[in-house]
């Protein structure tokens, strides 16, 4: 197609595109401008990209026609052109230049009319960087574009996270930064951004757009799951729950993402999901774990963790799930207690250690007496069971009142 494009036609198309851009800027039409900047979603061949291919001197054209945008337009056109040629590394580099120029302009605009376009730039630069990095990895080079995009977005964030009307757009950039940091595994960098979002006194968090708030809560909730301290799981619970409650109910994939982290968190504080929920959102990797919690089936838990280990490790919930082991033990003891109460009510509160060892053996788990004794001690120590252990007689003595207290939202 491109081959058939006449120079004049190509020239006309490019000029048209440029004048639309210029109009959008001069008329402060953020939405229009944003749509013109969306380049990574474009198919390989568009009228514009064809024209750019046919008219190689587009850079000069743009600079001549709109000298006041000479930093911005040529780079932008080059980025579009490189992108259409699937040279993402080049596309990224050019786009970053254009974005820098745009940011410069944006800083000078007093009203936030171009917020939408700025967000588009932030999104585009991330997407382009990801593509560029993929390309770099394929060619065996060091993928550093996403990192560069991260530092560029920090600049954008700096321009937005100020007093004034532009601040409302800061959370969107924050979320883009989160995405980059999570992908790069440099999650610790999130902290500074979070601090500046959460410590701002002159801007209420609730005033941010809902979609940004949900994304923000999702990522910060995930961060809490990562946190060293398990008591942060309550925080994680709150944030992820917030994200779940405010998320668009139509957006099932987003709901699934949230649930993927919320379910382990809830499990650890003793809240089990219905199976239908797991089925609805295709989170069946948790199904066995939930079942094992219900049954006190230690073997099933270990199997489930083993089977999904890689996946669970990757998304960072493995360590949380691993901790469920004690809850499974507790359930097991509870079941034994219930059976004993039926058979021998007078001794319902005394569970012999050998019984426990034998039970575990039935489950295919071989543990010696000391180990089991230790587990019981831990259960008592961590308030999962009320009672005490009599070492001399090797008997676990349960409290007569509420021997298995509810977790009440306290993580183990």
């Amino acid at each position, binding site marked *: 197609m491109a081959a058939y494009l006449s120079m004049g036609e190509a020239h006309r198309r490019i000029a048209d595109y440029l004048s639309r851009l210029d109009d959008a800027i001069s008329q402060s039409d953020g939405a229009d401008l944003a749509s013109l900047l969306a380049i990574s979603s474009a198919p390989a061949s568009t009228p514009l990209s064809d024209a750019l291919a046919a008219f190689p001197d587009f850079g000069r054209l743009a600079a001549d026609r709109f000298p006041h945008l000479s930093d911005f337009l040529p780079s932008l056109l080059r980025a579009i052109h490189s992108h259409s040629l699937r040279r993402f590394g080049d596309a990224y580099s050019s786009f970053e230049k254009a974005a820098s120029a745009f940011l410069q302009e944006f800083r000078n605009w007093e009203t936030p009319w171009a917020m939408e376009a700025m967000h588009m730039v932030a999104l585009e630069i991330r997407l382009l960087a990801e593509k560029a990095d993929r390309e770099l990895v394929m060619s065996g080079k060091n993928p550093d574009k996403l990192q560069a995009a991260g530092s560029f977005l920090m600049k954008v964030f700096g321009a937005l996270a100020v007093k004034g009307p532009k601040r409302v757009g800061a959370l969107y950039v924050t979320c883009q930064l989160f995405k980059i940091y999570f992908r790069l*595994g440099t*999650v610790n960098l999130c902290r500074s951004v979070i601090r500046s979002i959460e410590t701002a006194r002159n801007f209420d968090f609730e005033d941010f757009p809902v979609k940004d708030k949900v994304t923000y809560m999702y990522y910060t909730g995930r961060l809490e799951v*990562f*946190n*060293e301290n398990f008591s942060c799981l309550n925080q994680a619970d709150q944030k992820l729950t917030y994200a779940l409650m405010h998320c668009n109910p139509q957006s099932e994939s987003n709901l699934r993402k949230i649930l993927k982290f919320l379910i382990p968190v809830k499990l650890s504080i003793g809240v089990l999901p219905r199976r239908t929920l797991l089925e609805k959102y295709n989170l069946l990797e948790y199904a066995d774990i939930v079942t094992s919690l219900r049954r006190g089936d230690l073997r099933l838990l270990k199997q489930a963790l083993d089977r999904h280990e*890689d996946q669970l*490790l*990757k998304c*960072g919930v*493995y*360590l949380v799930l*691993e*901790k469920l*082991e*004690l809850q499974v033990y507790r359930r097991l003891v509870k079941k034994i207690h219930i059976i004993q109460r039926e058979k021998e009510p007078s001794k319902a509160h005394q569970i012999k250690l050998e019984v426990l060892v034998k039970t575990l053996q039935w489950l295919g788990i071989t543990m010696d007496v*000391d*180990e089991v*004794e*230790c*587990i*019981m*001690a*831990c*259960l*008592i*120590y*961590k308030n999962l069971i009320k009672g*005490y*252990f*009599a*070492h*001399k007689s090797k008997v676990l*003595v349960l409290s007569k009142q509420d021997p298995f207290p509810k977790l009440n939202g306290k993580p183990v």
Partner: protein
Amino acid sequence: MASHGAAPAAGSDAARVEVSGTGQTNQPAYPPLVSGDHSWSSTTGAAAAGSWNYPVANQSQDAVYYDPQRDVSVSGDNQNVASSAPPAVQSTMGLTNASHSHVPYSSSLQHGYNPAEYANYYYNYPQATNSCSVQQGGANQHSGAAYQPLTSFQNSGSYVDPASNTYYNAGGHQTAPGYATTNYYYQTDTRNDGSSANNYAQSYQNYPSSDTNAAQSSSTVPANSFSYQQQYNQWPYYYNHSVPTPAGNPVAGSSNIDNTVVNTTSGYSYPSMEPPPPGTTPWKSNSGASVVPPVQAPSVPEPQNQYVQQAQVTPGFQNQYAYQAPGVPVSQNYYASQAPAYPQNNMNVNQVPLNNHGDQQKSPNMQGSLTTGIYSSENKTQIPTIPRIAPGFSMVIPKSEKKILGADLAKKPAYVSVSVPKNDDKAVQNGSDARSLPFSLRNYAMRNLSRCKDEAQRAACQTMIQQITSKAISNGTLLTKNWDTEPLIPLPENLLTMTETSANNSSSLPTSSTPKRRLKSRWEPVPEEKVTEKVEPLAKALMNGYVHNNLKAQNTMGNSWNLGKSLQSPHAPSSKISHRLSKKQKMGSYSSVVQNGNTSSDSDKEKDLTKYYANASAVANSPEEKKRREHRSKRFEKSKDSPSKSRNSAVNKDAMARIHTRRPISALVTGSYKDGSSLAVEDMDWDALTVKGTCQEIEKRYLRLTSAPDPSTVRPEHVLEKALSMVETSQKNYLYKCDQLKSIRQDLTVQRIQNELTVKVYETHARLALQAGDLPEFNQCQSQLKRLYREGNNGCYFEFSAYNLLCVMLHSNNKRDLLSSMASLSKEAKQDGAVKHALAVHAAVSSGNYVIFFKLYKQGPNLNSCLMDLYVERMRFEAIKCMSRSYRPTVPVGYVAQVLGFLLDGEDRLEECEIWLKAHGAVLSVDNSGELQIDTKASSSTLFMPEPENAVAHGDASLAVNDFFARTL
């Protein structure tokens, strides 16, 4: 001061500006301090209480709060503070300085500080007495009056100078010239005294002597006269000392205070000091005259002198101003006055008491007019000190004097003479009312002009001086500024190193150590060029001239600076000397710090303590403070660099050789330096610098490189292999092996060898480090190994994966790291025994299953158990907490011992466990059958984690002093 070397020149302008602002602010703050001190002094008949407060302030530059617990070193700082206190600006300065000095000097500090402390002591005591006198003479003039009586009292006659006496009496109005000459002498004396007494001085020795002096004032007098010449000789030493101080001071210099200026110019400051001689001399004379209590003088002399001068300055007379220049020293004077008291009370008292005194001293000063207070104290003490110093000096002096000093002495006179005419010149040149200009400023101008070789330079210099003067006037620092310590203006042509100005008197010797340091490692980012540039474009030249300026040389000789030469040639001679003197230098630096503290002017009035503190803390956080910190760190680099300084210097032939041979290699870098620009690390051509070693020696000590490696000291790969096997079979201790392995690693790195051998070296080192419990070293190796494995080098990957897992889970306790470590394990790795073990340990720790943990502990493959070792204590404590909570009524100790991995069998194990349990607060009882049990209910509330016995403040027990020595032997 010396450290300022490069910066100083530039610093002069910038510094001034800063000074004006900060100085003023400080001053207000200062007075409060005084009051506080005062109270202290009154309460603390003994030094202790007073000392607390000040020390604290000094220590924590940031916070001005008092730390009662302050160490000795702190006390040293205190001195500074105290001294500084009288002049408001100075006070803050003192703080900053003190802190600075502290950090850098840590080892040496004590010595230096002690002397200072002593001085403080003295002063304090006197202060009480002094304060009275001070109060009487509210104004400076008054003080003068008060003094006179004192002087008459003292041996002043014996001490000496009529001129000084007269000066004193006159109120310091007398003609500058006359003063200068007389003063000059005095100064030398005082300086020597100060340096010797304070710095060298083995403060302790002086101390006793001072006592005696106090007692026998008469006896001391003769000593003074004696000492004079000796002291004179010492001068150079003093300067040397001062040089180091600059380093310490630089930081201070960065701070806004006037003093800071001095510091920055470090080199300069010295020169400035010289001028003070005139002023100082009077001072001394004052001290001599006034010094009824001779004792104090000996240790404190320098400071005292300066102080006096300050006091004089206050009157506003030009002459007085000259004195002010010395102002820095003034603080010391304070001390001196107090000093006398010190001997009386605290012969035994060490540093702590001193501190107190220092504080107390301040208070007295504060009360009266500062100056008056100072005076009184000074008078009393100074004379005695001198004698003492003389003895001490005589010990020290011989070395340096003979070589270097001789020249200095000869030159000095010349200098003096020159200075006089210059004053005139300057006055004319400036066109400003000479009368209105402080004497010290004129001296300063003279000094600058005297250095000019030709008319062009002179003209340039004049304009510079005018600028500086006008700036000072506009800033209001004209009178308050310590012109005697102001850095000299860089000569347009030579520029030389103005920074080293110390050169004036000190000559190359003292400066050598500091200026050289200035060179820094070439990786150091841009030097303080900015500062220098501010001052003048010329200042850039400074970069080149690490060389010291010898004022003498310049004055008398008028030239002789070869920038290029200066770099190297001065070094060699100076380095030796500096080495010898290094200790003393440090002390000297300390003293100089004190002096700086004084800089401020007369204008102190009442201010709020709180303000003062706030200022101090602000200073601590200020950019200047940061700069200073940089200076400090640089100094360490440098000290490592210069063979003379390094502890090993004598030992290390290699290092010496390297320094010389290194030059060619690093020519590129140095060259860039000369141009006043430095290459960024990323701009360097590392390939060109990659070394092919030629050294055939198997054994080599590790020395952190501070410059490009020298091929003749780098071992090629095949030698490194031998070295590795040598280390592996060596019977020597870990420290030796660690040192050897580090040098092997260094050689590998500089030759960019990354292969199986590299892996092996790191693995060997990592294992040794694990066995020795040296986690930091292990972590270094581990991170290198991770990279090496990732880059495809073969090694014991699984083994180290297991270590990595254990390390992350047991020590760093970072969930994200653990997750990524676990996620990065391959299927094969998970089948490996060591890795499996590590994962099992993780499971045990995560569920708190101590039984499994200790079972695994006993079966750990490779060195897994070594890593677990570091967690055993914590795990045991968790376990015993768990047991005491969940078991009722008792648990047999035997069972606990078995479960918690007490390794020995039988009775021994029981005993060990019992000891451990008791140490952690468990309640034990014996049951009916005679078996030892833990009473769990009682224990559950009494368990505690004892403080580790080998804990050290800096957190790394392996850095214990003994080990430190073992390493350096």
